């Protein structure tokens, strides 16, 4: 797992523990985001926390409109739009 993927997993877990009982699932590339347990408000919080941690929000900077379905696409979207 890349640094970015593990960072996202970590913050996902943090939000999960704030919102839900039990342990968060480990996200793999194939995990469908909205079937993993957090709703779209949960993802909004994830994107906001990642913006604090990483300093960018790909949903704001991306030139093409895209909403990822699975975790692999989510990480790739962050990688593709990282500031250079």
């Amino acid at each position: 797992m890349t640094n970015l993927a593990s960072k996202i997993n970590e913050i996902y877990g943090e939000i999960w523990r704030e919102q839900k009982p039990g342990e968060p699932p480990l996200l793999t590339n194939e995990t469908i985001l909205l079937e993993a347990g957090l709703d779209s408000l949960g993802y909004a919080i994830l994107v906001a926390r990642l913006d604090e941690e990483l300093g960018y929000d790909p949903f704001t900077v991306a030139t093409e409109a895209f909403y990822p379905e699975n975790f692999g696409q989510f990480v790739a979207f962050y990688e593709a739009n990282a500031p250079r």
Partner: protein
Amino acid sequence: MILSSDAAWTALDPARRVVTSSEGWLTASQLIEARVSRDFAPAGSFAVSMKSPARMLSALFALDGTAAEILLLSPGLSAPHIAEIMASFPSMMLVSDRSDAGPCTHPDVLFAAPAASARPAVTTSWIMTTSGTTGVPKAVRHTLAGLARTVRRAEPAEGKSAPVWGLLYEPSRFAGLQVVLQAILGGGMLAVPAIGDRIDARIDFLAAAGCTHLSATPTLWRGILMTAASRGLALKQITLGGEIADDAVLTALGARFPQARLTHIYASTEAGVGFAVKDGRAGFPAAYLSEPPAGASIRIADGELLLKSDHGGSSAAIGEKLDGDGFYRTGDRVELVGDRVMFRGRDDLRANIGGAKVQLEDVERIVLGHPGVAFARAEAMRSSIAGNLLSLSVVPARPDLDPADLRRGVMRFCAEHLPPEARPALVKVLREVPVEASGKTMRRMS
């Protein structure tokens, strides 16, 4: 329900199935002819909060014409919050199918005894609360006839099937009732997924029900686009409302559903008016300022959007927000960019989080109930997914409190005391009250 002379209701074929939900079908006659039992005094007042949307619809239509007042309450409200709202309506009876709503009457009891034979034909007030989720919401009174005013009836062309409207809003909300009435009175069918199901399950249900018309907030649409199930939807009409639609979500919807018409709605419940934008671009055409869409007049003053209803259907409590010409000051900042008017957020203490309006001072007041918090400041921050999110800054009540512990404690406290959309996404622990806090006091007084 009062059928009266309303042609739309009497035109409904009683045998036609008008609602499909996970609990089965409802025909037009089941909705229209439902009566409450005679044990319930006519002209009483009822508050309804149902986890089953089909039960909610049955109860609403049965009570209309019999009850003096119906107070529509979201199934997401907690028992203490319901009690707080109902304190303003002391004679109301709470009807609910929930086990967590507090003392209430089950809806089955309403229908248990033989129905009242004579139809009392009262004009029922439908009382809806504003979509704010903290504090005591403002109540706005409607009638069923008034709510149904915007319904457009279109006979499907020969060989074409009737529209199937998906209900993703709660039927206790204005936007939800608009979908319900448009679907049923407009000659279509209403598809109702179970409230509380995950979004992918609800979209699967709608796809299987053949949903063609779907209305949701931009936040929910982003969530829908994130589901694989959305690829199974064959949509002809997409409507976005409740918060500002940006180009990203409009473009993504256009790409996913190329066959669908794309409409985004700007509406002010307080002003009793709204307008639609149909060109698939964020903001609205500057031409609307000189050639306003039907029903509304629009102007910009000092960078703020002002609206006036052409039929004067605004709520009574907005007097102080009207300008000299009777235009309502919406509080939404706008900017003219070329031939377009773009939305630029708000300048008051209200955040729109996924379509739910949250008063920042209510959040602050509740967070101050945490024993470790001496000062709390909630701010709206832009979110590319949810419109706005809340950022909360707190100052510890004692210097010896560990910031990380306090942060977690405040998060837990918020989860216990605030609805999901009013919980802060970020909590920062500050060492002292920020200097801008004085500025905020000024802002509150303005």
